[in-house]
């Protein structure tokens, strides 16, 4: 504990270096800035994957370190997407409406513009009124503030109610899942003010940059995602490296004992829950402009369950494990569900990867849980020979039994 932060956690430097090299390589191969060997849509996929890695980091902190299996963190992710999507959609529609009205000769009044935007955006759900929640959608700084504060506040209030009542374990997981589902069902309604099941679309078009090619925009967002992931990794690694990390791991292992040491366990859980919700939100804010579309299905509980699966496969309780898991599984997932892999004909049945991918994922989750509980990240431990030494056998005696059966024979 005496050495400096970076000396204690060499994995941070390795991770940041790997991320930098990866970012540079993709930039040099991209269509926007380099040789054009990687398609723009694949750059977007990679950028989105980096955002998923960031939300997996958050999940690892809340689940792998603090032991709170939240099945609601993708709700914060999607809420962030909705918030930034509102601004993107509003500002972009505003441009279109202003251009259209200018055709008439007379400059449009603000009321006409407002009306035009409302009709454009909400015509699809049969409304022409701008709902109250869109009040700040015209301003990027205001909407960005909302994008972080709304999910943050939701996490704070939800966490406060749940942790204060000492809801733990599987009950807490169910509660978080119920929260996600309730939010999704609410957003599915047409009068929720967020276009019901149509969601928000056209988010890849940045306002004011109509003439800029997506080749460039995709790389910009890729950089932003890489930067956010790098900073997020650094920040979370710092949080878990010191005494705070020690306290939350202790809470994970024996909550009651931590209370008897005088630590306000509920305050720690609330802190971690809210902090990770904010990280998830940030990841969502960067993800959805690359995805281009968001709808309430993104909040479905299954999304948060996938998140838990990524972290479990990558390895809980180590930050790089979460990143590896999210990156590896989500890239494989987009490969298998892209429809580009040829089906394997086996006589009467043929294996279609799009359908079979979920089966493969399910089996690998079970396999990891049973055979390698530490996940892919645990392989690093095996190479570095860290972790619990396998001492074999039972202690030889009750007193200071440092020698155990096998050791004594050697």
């Amino acid at each position, binding site marked *: 504990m*005496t050495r400096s932060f970076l000396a204690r956690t060499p994995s941070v430097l390795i991770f940041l270096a790997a991320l930098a090299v990866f970012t540079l390589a993709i930039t040099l191969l991209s269509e926007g800035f380099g040789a054009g060997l990687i398609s723009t849509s694949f750059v977007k996929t990679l950028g989105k994957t980096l955002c998923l890695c960031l939300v997996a980091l958050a999940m690892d902190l809340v689940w792998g370190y603090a032991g709170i299996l939240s099945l609601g963190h993708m709700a914060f992710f999607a809420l962030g997407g909705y918030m930034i999507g509102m601004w993107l959609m509003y500002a972009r529609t505003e441009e279109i409406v202003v251009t259209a009205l200018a055709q008439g000769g007379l400059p449009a009044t603000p009321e006409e513009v407002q009306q035009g935007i409302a009709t454009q955006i909400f015509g699809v759900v049969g409304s022409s009124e701008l709902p109250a929640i869109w009040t700040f959608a015209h301003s990027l700084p205001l909407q960005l503030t909302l994008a972080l504060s709304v999910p943050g506040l939701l996490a704070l209030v939800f966490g406060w109610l749940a942790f204060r009542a000492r809801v733990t374990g599987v009950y807490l997981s169910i509660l978080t899942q119920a929260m996600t589902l309730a939010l999704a069902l609410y957003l599915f309604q047409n009068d929720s003010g967020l276009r019901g099941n149509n969601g928000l679309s056209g988010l890849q078009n940045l306002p004011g940059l109509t003439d800029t090619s997506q080749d460039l925009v995709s790389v910009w967002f890729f950089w932003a995602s890489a930067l956010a992931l790098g900073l997020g990794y650094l920040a979370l690694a710092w949080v878990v490296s010191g005494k705070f990390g020690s306290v939350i791991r202790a809470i994970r292992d024996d909550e009651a004992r931590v*209370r008897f040491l005088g*630590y306000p366990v509920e305050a720690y859980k609330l802190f971690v829950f809210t902090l990770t919700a904010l990280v998830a939100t940030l990841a969502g804010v960067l993800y959805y402009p690359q995805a281009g579309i968001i709808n309430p299905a993104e909040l479905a509980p299954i999304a948060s369950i996938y998140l838990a699966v990524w972290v479990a496969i990558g390895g809980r309780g180590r930050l790089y494990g979460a990143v590896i898991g999210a990156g590896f599984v989500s890239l494989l997932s987009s490969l298998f569900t892209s429809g580009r892999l040829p089906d394997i004909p086996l006589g009467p049945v043929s294996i279609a990867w799009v359908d079979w991918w979920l089966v493969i994922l399910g089996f690998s989750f079970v396999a990891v849980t049973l055979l390698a509980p530490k996940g892919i990240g645990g392989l690093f431990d095996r190479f570095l020979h860290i972790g619990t030494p396998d001492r074999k056998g039972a202690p030889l005696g009750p007193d200071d039994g440092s020698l155990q059966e096998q050791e004594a024979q050697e």
Partner: protein
Amino acid sequence: MTALLEVSGVSVSFDGFRAINNLSFSIGPAELRAIIGPNGAGKTTFMDIITGKTRPDSGTVTFGPRSISLLGLNEARIAREGIGRKFQRPTVFEDQTVEANLILALKAARSPWKVLFWSPKPADLARVRALANEVGLSGHLQRKSGELSHGQKQWLEIAMLLAQEPRLLLVDEPVAGMTPAERAQTTDLLVNLAQDRAVVVVEHDMDFVRRLDCRVTVLHEGAVLAEGSLDHVTRDPQVVSVYLGRG
């Protein structure tokens, strides 16, 4: 001498079973006290009430020179007031090093923000080394505490309690599973500790209690049956009948 801890008229029942029945108890600021009693006498429930794990149905519990009421405070708050508890089974954080365990217990600010920006000062590390030395773990600071033997875990937990600097120490069966040598060491330690703080020891083992050489409180069916020196209470006909009657 005013009492450090004053428990008076406390009762608690679980589903109609009276675990603690109008119990009163007090201990001074520098006193060693042993609590004995047959199984089901309410010893653990008594400790649960003091540490805030169980809320009594009636009665008062006050602590410290300002006589603050412990009822209504949560476990963490009571621990911060200066009450430490040692469980029967050694509970250390097995996945963390001995050093990390001691640093967790070290008396310092407990709120999340302060802990986030806390870093060990030389004095803290010196204290950790001194504590480890005191319980014979100085060579094991960087080992994961899960690798320690049962006895070493007990000692680590005792060192963690010392690091908390409690004013009242509740110890549940400290010598269970210890060798005779370790028992003697524990006896000395507890007697030593009680010179400047209150120590309550719950124990079954009569020989151990005799070696502690302190006032003894006998609990039976949730109430105090007798109190005094060990010789005094063992001569008490009621105590004899309770112990003999139960075999």
